[in-house]
């Protein structure tokens, strides 16, 4: 099969509040759709098989690995990515706390971690250890270790609205 033969699908969804309505390859992952079709490169790919969480986005309120979701599966869905989090120049509280705690070093896992943490705290702003780990353990960080990330999420939780 060559490139011209890939079936196309119409993808209709909202991404960070903006309506999206465009064709995509039927086998396009949400990750590649966001990055390479829409230019939203804040969402990162790393393991590309759902192990590391770098590509985490929010799909109708749930944290998903966008490398394991097809763009075609997002019909009518609400997609939130790291680009939609800040309000103009004003950082989201998680972004601010990640900065203040030194939780972003190389920064590659950061967008995915922040999106996963947002889902965690939206569901439970005061998570116990078990809930915290269940919410975050799908995300791997290779260079920062986890202490600063935990601190950032805990301090964001204190100001969670």
């Amino acid at each position: 099969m060559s490139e011209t033969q890939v079936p196309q699908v119409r993808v209709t969804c909202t991404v960070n509040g903006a309506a999206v309505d465009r064709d995509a390859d039927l086998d396009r992952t949400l990750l590649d759709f966001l990055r390479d079709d829409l230019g939203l490169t804040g969402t990162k790919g790393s393991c590309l098989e759902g192990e590391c969480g770098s590509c985490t986005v929010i799909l109708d309120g749930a944290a998903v690995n966008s490398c394991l979701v097809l763009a075609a599966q997002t019909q009518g869905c609400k997609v939130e990515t790291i680009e939609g989090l800040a309000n103009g120049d004003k950082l989201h509280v998680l972004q601010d706390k990640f900065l203040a705690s030194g939780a972003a070093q190389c920064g590659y896992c950061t967008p995915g971690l922040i999106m996963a943490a947002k889902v965690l705290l939206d569901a439970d702003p005061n998570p116990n250890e078990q809930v915290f780990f269940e919410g975050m353990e799908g995300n791997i960080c290779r260079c920062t270790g986890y202490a600063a990330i935990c601190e950032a999420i805990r301090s964001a939780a204190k100001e969670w609205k």
Partner: protein
Amino acid sequence: MISSQPTGIQTDAPAAGPLVEPSTTPYLERPHGPVGRSERRIDGVEKVTGAALYGADLFFNRADLFATIVRSEIPHGHLLSVDSTAALKIDGVLAVYTAKNMPPGATNRQGLIHRDHPVLVEDKILYRGDAIALVVARTERASREGRRAVKAEYEKLPVVGDMDDALAEDAPRLHPNGNIMGGKRIRKGDVDAALAASDVVVSETFQTQTVDHAFLDIEAGIAYWRDGLLTIHASGQWAHEERRLVALALGLPIESVRIITPATGGAFGGREDLGLQVYLGLAALKHPGKTIAMRYSREESMRARHKRHALRIHYTVGAKSDGTLTAAKITVYSDEGAYASTGPAVLRKAASHSTGPYRVPNVYVDVYGVYTNNNPTGAMRGFGACQMAIAYEGMMERLAERLGMDRIELRRRNLIRSGDAVTTGQIIPLATGVECMDAALRQFRSKPMPPAPSAPHMKRGWSLSVICFGLGYGDGFPDASRATVRFTPAGRLEVATGGVEYGQGLLNMAGQIAAEELGVPMSLVDVVWADTGRTQESGSSSATRQTYFTGNAVKIAASELREQVLDIASKLLHVHPHELDMRDARVVGRFDASLVKPLDEVLQAGRERGHSLEATGIFKPRTVCEDYETGQSPRSFITYLFASHLAQVLVDTETGEVRIERYIACHDVGKAINPQSVAGQMIGGATQGIGMALMEEVVNVDGVMRNPNFTDYILPSFRDIPIIETVILENDDPGGPFGARGVGEPPLIAATPAVLAAIANAIGVQPHTTPCTPQRVWELLHPEEAAVPHEARFGLAPEHARMGR
């Protein structure tokens, strides 16, 4: 002493006994600006908002063509032919290039030390990642389909799957000079006589594993050839060396290549060898004017890239009955994989760090690099020193057990003190291993031990490690860093360095030092980095060297610029420049508070008078090559770092699972330029070291990597790592910028042996093979039921490895 943890109440503490107080020596020129403060990351906002552009983020709206690499399907053989007919029939595939299509003058070779690694294979295939062709297509999909359609014909040769295969008498020769890449030796005193006269002799064979860097930001980038300039945007660790290597491989003048490093998501040594830069460059040369994009999958990244050396270490140590070390006899075999990479330097570092921070009067070391058909092995955080730390700390634990002596006291007795020499004979003016160990113990005592586990199969244990590490390339290798500091027409302070920021905090280190020296707030500082078109060479971001080397270069440049500014100001204020200081974006009188001039006005006056408002610094200290016969050198490394880690573990003796309950990392960093960033390096490094101790392992079977993905290559996750308590000691290095030494590698080096020793303390059996997976721990506990990899460990063992067992 800075401690990130509030110290708790004193309780009945483990490991009683007097501790040495940390002896922090205040720096004479006490910083009053950003040095020593946890300033926010200069690149922080773009990283938390997703705006930072990493290699693969450059594709969007830029990429015209896509390239992919066809890699060998066999680990060893001859490449007979490459048939691209089917590939070229695929819609969108434009070209398939092989070694025959290299540009005129191209060497078609890469390699940091030996240029032994073909860019595209001409004949001999030495590992499964060897590149045999390059496909260029209009879309990424077509380039991948083209890759699948390229047919290569091979003549297979017997696979040299491990070091035993390579050293067998009838082993196939992998390189013209045979299967031994090279070696390194240390000869100091009379080891055999000293061992014979020792009260106890202990031997052990350690086997460390192959480790993958597993940085999250997979290799990706873009390149274009326009107006006689090849520009490559791709992550590496040493932009200026990448420029040289690409130029050499492709037959271009160096000035015709420009490397621009995008945001980089981790490196850990894994980006030291060339990755896709040279392939991007080749595709760009073949398609002038077009922007070529290229990225690896995770599997390709893991199959293609070099790895950490797996070392087999035969270690024999002798001591007097009071614990005083007398001699160490060490033989090391190192799996070099297919090509040399930075292996020769790793071997040398393994030798020079083979007895760590301990006084050993008689030392005999042989290190051999052995070629196999596995991935090349090269640079990774720890660089030979971390494997040796597993061995020398493992020997301290065994020796303490044999002597019936406290393991802390045994270390205290043998740790080098200021003025003692390390293995290479180099005198260490300020040795703070004891301070680090005691600071870690003090932190440990600050909280009570939890109650003993009630389940009888759960065993708790704790122990520690002490390590030292020589920073920089050392060993006589040319090592220099340059930096340029200038005030821009807009009044901002711009620092330019060739060093790569991959997360470790280089930008803040350089920016904070310049801001400190020139008295400007961080909000006015910009750092330009790792663009060969805009910065001067600063050496690699590796070897724990950037704080010491580039930090010094920035400080030298900034103090030169400061002289210029104070000179201008002295004419405006009519005083001698020595009576002036720069603080808070003003020039102020040192002794006369009424003398104040805003920096803006001074800079404007300088511009009007034709001053450059720019200065360049070069820091180029000399080290002395280790003697070929004896391995001795008066100054093999520019300076040494000391650290101690302490781990407390809980082992499930039924399953072999190890949980780390408590973890303390103590490092003497000289001066923490940015304490938060230093603690971040300590925690991140310790996390990788814990991964090496417990789970990370590349499994190679007959030259095939069996786990080239994150499903089967296990990395530490949230649950695996406890809150790491960090203790920073600051014993100024007189040669470092504001007294700073550095931090990068030691956190990993100290971590693995601390965890292994804690496991030994818990289960009463000493581990010898890493990682200590549940299965290996279980096997240690049930040796009669386990197939002990005895042959692997002792197959090549020299005689001394069986002494004193």
